[in-house]
């Protein structure tokens, strides 16, 4: 099982801050598509993805137990 985290505008659009899905074996790109089917937010397209608190590229493969976070463009500072 994998935990998905949503932040900021994406959290509001999804109406939840975390959800569990089984995504092991998929690439980040595939994960984005799959999550988009459930939470069709435009912001998902412009978000970065972090796997286990590190930015992950489109080709990165999800493993069992990974935490996957969807990060809208940041605006700290």
């Amino acid at each position, binding site marked *: 099982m994998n935990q998905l*985290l949503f*932040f*900021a*505008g994406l*959290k*509001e659009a999804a109406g939840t801050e975390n959800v569990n899905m089984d995504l092991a074996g998929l690439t980040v790109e595939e994960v984005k598509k799959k999550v988009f089917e459930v939470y069709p937010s435009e912001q998902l*397209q*412009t*978000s*970065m993805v*972090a*796997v286990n*608190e*590190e*930015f*992950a*590229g489109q080709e*990165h493969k999800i493993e069992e137990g990974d935490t996957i*976070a969807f*990060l*809208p*463009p*940041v*605006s*700290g*500072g």
Partner: protein
Amino acid sequence: MNGKQVWVTEEPLSPGEIISRVTRRDAGAINTFIGTVREFTKGKKTLYLHYEAYPAMAEKKLQQIADEIEKQWPGTTTVMAHRTGRLDITDIAVVIAVSTPHRDASYAASRYAIERIKEIVPIWKKEHWEDGEEWIGNQKETKPGVPTKEESR
């Protein structure tokens, strides 16, 4: 408070306390950058802000920035803290303090830190106005979804 080099907190930040953490015998210069909540942005009046973080990752990324700085400017000590939650006008959102032997590096490292924070640290700002609210994003106008200068795994 604590002995950390970087942290994210809901508590008010104290610049004096953070400055004292970077003060040391082999430094002659300390540069500090403080981001505060400004009332007007592009003519629009902000009532207050709300900052949200992905705290564990935000602290990791702040630490990464501190490490990058100490690699790029040897002999630099960096302490950084970011506040989250509701912030009112003039409240401090971020404090960066760097100490270096000489002043050139203190300015360069401090500037580097704030630019990197706006690039890679997962913290988001929501502006609240009289007539609405909005999550602010992409301040650096980087291409969405592409972590600039960040190595993708």
